[in-house]
């Protein structure tokens, strides 16, 4: 039926990025989906970003991915979270119009050169000499492909649970993909079961908003994409409600009717996305749990109840939702459900996201054991780039823990594996003072440009921004601020000691109590664009920490630069402990840095490995 360079299976957030990256790098690309009407669907919360996830979106954008631009265009509310807690943990989050996001992404895919969209269920892979050769669809069509990216989300052998009711189905009423799993196993890919869940959607008019606190978007919203120039829209509020003792009693009284507590679900669910029954059982001492009521879009009356996912029967759901203040008359439009699906153990993958056992086969997104649209999109982008680079015979893209959250995410997956769906968190990154969402472009855009996903126009704008930041940093380290009544008044108000002699602008800016915009007028600096003054301020304030983190990073890069030959035989290395041999053989790390992060491999084991490799003439 056709021959492609790269075939992408699944058109969710991972699949879309993978297909776009591959096609943009000039490869003939096919994107297969069970339903063209569910491209880039948001089957769970209608939002993009959030803590650490917002970092991922910025990084995707900085590398030349699509999610940031699409989220900016589909946003109906935007908030910068953690504004007061420090630049490193600030994260952007938008409520997105779910249908609009789908439409925007579908149009982008359709308009993309080299990219064909196909509605078909892929049921098998053909390989030759251990490499991907072709795909077979349910209708029997065969498509040649040099590389395949599996981005099957929660569709493989998917089962939905609502109380006693169990049925085969993908999310949001889509068909499940029931045949690919067997074929993957035949190709040597080992699979396992994970589960996740989603809360009910309810009708707007059945909610009494007068009894709930509203949460508005930011007064001055900022976009995800470094390219977005039109303002992000802030059109709707969200609302906050709370469970109470009677909600908890209803849940406890009906616990045996939950498939989770009744033991009918075997899949492993995420700890950070607990169902309401989990929360009530595990945190019995909490008197109330918070929920957010979020609009699903501008052209729908459906509202999403964040924080209230459940697999209890529909009648119990209705009863406990109605026990909540403001929801007394709530009408459910779609019930909450739990979904169980096949996914792979990501330690089968290299950090390029290619399977160790099948050449040209890549995994991305929930199929790799993660959770979340942003985690999925990040992996899709990396898998798409690497499939393309491999076919073009170019060096693979391996992002590092030290240059991105995406690097930390993938390193965690392929080095440590995951025993539950993996969610990105700021606390997973040891270098988080450096890996901020505000400097994603500085960290990654040069890479994106080298790969070929950043336009010349965008890159020169980026270079101009860097130059402006450098210039202002140089300027404020030269000029002084004189003591004045106005300045000392600000200092006193902020509990910072007043000054009596002139001080360098940059010295003063280092004080945690002061901002660039406080000082700029007093020092006669012209007004700068926010994106410039923000970088200047953070660079000055975080200087000490950054120097320290960059030193740690340099040390880490030293061990990452010591590559391990792919054909190494760990069993012949004397002095390695048995556990270390087994772990190293399973993970097959690319370098000594990665080896040192494998649990069960001690620093002494790494030393032994280093000496062994040196003896064999490496390094």
């Amino acid at each position, binding site marked *: 039926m056709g021959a492609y360079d790269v075939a992408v299976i699944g058109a969710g957030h991972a699949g879309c990025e993978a297909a776009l990256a591959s096609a943009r790098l000039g490869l003939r690309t096919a994107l297969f989906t069970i339903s063209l009407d569910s491209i880039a669907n948001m089957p769970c919360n209608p939002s993009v970003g959030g803590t*650490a996830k917002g970092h991922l979106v910025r990084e995707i954008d900085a590398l030349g991915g699509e999610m940031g631009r699409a989220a900016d265009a589909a946003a109906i509310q935007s908030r910068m979270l953690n504004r007061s807690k420090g630049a490193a943990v600030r994260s952007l989050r938008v409520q997105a119009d779910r249908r609009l996001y789908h439409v925007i992404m579908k149009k982008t895919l359709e308009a993309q050169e080299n990219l064909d969209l196909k509605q078909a269920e892929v049921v098998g892979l053909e390989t030759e000499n251990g490499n991907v050769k072709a795909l077979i669809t349910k209708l029997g069509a065969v498509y040649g492909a040099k590389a395949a990216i599996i981005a099957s989300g929660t569709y493989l052998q998917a089962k939905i649970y609502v109380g006693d009711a169990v049925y085969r189905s993908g999310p949001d009423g889509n068909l499940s993909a029931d045949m690919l799993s067997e074929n993957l196993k035949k190709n040597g890919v080992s699979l396992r079961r994970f589960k996740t869940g989603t809360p009910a959607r309810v009708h707007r008019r059945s909610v009494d908003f007068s009894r709930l606190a509203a949460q508005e978007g930011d007064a001055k919203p900022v976009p995800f994409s470094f390219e977005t120039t039109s303002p992000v829209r802030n059109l709707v509020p969200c609302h906050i409600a709370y469970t109470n003792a009677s909600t908890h009693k209803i849940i406890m009284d009906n616990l045996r009717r939950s498939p989770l507590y009744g033991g009918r679900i075997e899949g492993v669910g995420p700890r950070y996305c607990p169902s309401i029954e989990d929360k009530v059982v595990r945190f019995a001492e909490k008197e109330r749990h918070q929920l957010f009521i979020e609009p699903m879009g501008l052209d729908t009356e459906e509202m999403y109840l964040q924080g209230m996912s459940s697999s209890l029967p529909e009648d119990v759901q209705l009863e406990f939702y109605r026990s909540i203040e403001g929801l007394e008359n709530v009408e459910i439009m779609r019930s909450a459900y739990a979904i169980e699906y096949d996914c792979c153990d990501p330690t089968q993958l290299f950090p390029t996201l290619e399977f160790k056992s099948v050449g040209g086969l890549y995994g991305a997104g929930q199929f790799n054991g993660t959770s979340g649209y942003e985690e999925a999109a990040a992996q899709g982008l990396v898998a798409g780039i690497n499939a393309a680079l491999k076919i073009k015979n170019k060096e693979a893209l391996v992002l590092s823990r030290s240059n991105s959250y995406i690097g930390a995410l993938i390193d965690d997956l392929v080095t440590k594996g995951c025993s539950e769906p993996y969610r990105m*968190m*700021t606390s997973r990154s040891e270098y988080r003072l450096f890996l901020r969402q505000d400097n994603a472009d500085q960290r990654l855009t040069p890479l994106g440009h080298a790969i070929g996903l950043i336009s010349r126009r965008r890159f020169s704008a980026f270079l101009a921004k860097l130059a402006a930041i450098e210039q202002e940093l140089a300027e404020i380290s030269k000029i002084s601020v004189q003591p004045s009544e106005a300045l000392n008044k600000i200092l006193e108000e902020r509990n910072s000691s007043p000054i009596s002699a002139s001080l360098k602008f940059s010295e003063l800016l280092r004080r945690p109590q002061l901002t660039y915009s406080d000082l700029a007028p007093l020092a006669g600096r012209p007004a700068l664009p926010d994106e410039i003054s923000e970088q200047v301020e953070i660079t000055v304030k975080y200087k000490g920490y950054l120097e320290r983190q960059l030193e740690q990073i340099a040390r880490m890069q030293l061990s990452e630069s010591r590559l391990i030959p792919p054909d190494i035989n760990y069993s012949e290395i004397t002095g390695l402990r048995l556990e270390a041999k087994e772990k190293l053989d399973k993970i097959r790390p690319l370098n000594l840095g990665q080896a040192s992060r494998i649990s069960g491999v001690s620093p*002494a084991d790494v030393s032994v490995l280093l000496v062994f490799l040196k003896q064999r003439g490496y390094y």
Partner: protein
Amino acid sequence: MPEPAVAAISTPFGQGGISAVRISGEEAIFIAERVFAPFSGKALGNMKGYTAAYGFFFEGSEKIRLDTGIALVYKAPKSYTGENVVELSCHGGIFIARKILRLILENGAKMAEAGEFTKRAFLNGKLSLTQAEAVTDLISASSERSLKMAVSASQGKLWSKIRSITEKLLDLSAYFSAWFDFPEEDIPELSGENILAEINSALLEISALIEGYDQGRLVREGIFTVIAGKPNVGKSTLMNLLSGEERSIVTDVPGTTRDFIEENVLLGDYVLRLVDTAGIRRTDDSVERIGVLRAEEKLRVADIVLALFDASEELDESDRRLLEKLDSRNTVIILNKSDIGLNLETSFFRANFEHVVVISARKGEGLDSLKAALESSLRLGNFDTDSPSLANERQLECARNAYNFLKETESLLSAGESLDAVSVMIEAAADSLLQLTGERTIDKTIDAVFAKFCVGK
């Protein structure tokens, strides 16, 4: 980026005229310059390889002198390890060597792993390839040994202590993680005061471990006790009284004790390693002047100083010079010759020193109150040999690093720095302690978040 410099004491423990501390790494010479200065005034960095300098060890920016010794400089690649190497030789026992090692570690070197000098030598092509297996054997044997040590009974207590401190720090970082990563959950806000209180209590526990290390060492290895006082004040008599033997030359001619005499003396449950010094006085005799200088150095590294004064006479100039050199924290003032008469104003001593005893060494009077003063000045009276204690310099280094990170956390908090930086500092402290058990802070933090907080959509 070069590997960090490493250091270790390279002579066998125990007695011996000379101890050597070895530093290896690109920064080795730079670090050595911060603890050792040649008398010639020439910087170590300007010396050629394979050359030696006679000089002195010092502490701090005021260059307080600790000992005299020799620095041997080797320049990369012409050294055992193939890196820059400095070998610092100091006098006498392990006490001074340890003190110097500690200063070196504080100035940026890391404690060498067992086998590390050899490993570096191998990696830098200084050993033949066939020696690789000997190197790996060395590494794995030593890691086995430390693993075994970790589960030994005496270390068991240490681990549970470390565990309880790290739990505290991990709770804090889990709190920060939950608070940063789930800002829309109603996570109770911890006040700066609460965080400070937690940090303080961890600091107290860690400093108890660090102090306990010194006390444990005192109990295990003996107390380096220096007897000081002007000539003929009765130092040798006191030494003989304590050791029960006539070792020092006891004469009435001042200045007969030229060299240092070391005696191991059992006092109660403790071993005193007694050193008698030449008197501190002005002298033109050049041989004796060296002795005086070295006596001053001993005072600075002593665990405890027994400072003798003649109770039968007024204080003279040389007494006053000695008084200037004393540190009230580790000094026991002994007013000797009470049998002749008490003509000294004791109130001056009692006002400035916690431990003042009046004895007659010649008659053997006042020994009990001396013992009591010793015990209490070393705080050994309540030192429980059963309590958890750090076993070696490596463990001490981890504890010190954790301590320093927490101190920094404290100052960040009080300066109002943003909490993202605070959280990273707390994790660094936890990481320093977890290095002892080989666990990772990030994994443990995330486990703790989900165990303790109800977060997630």
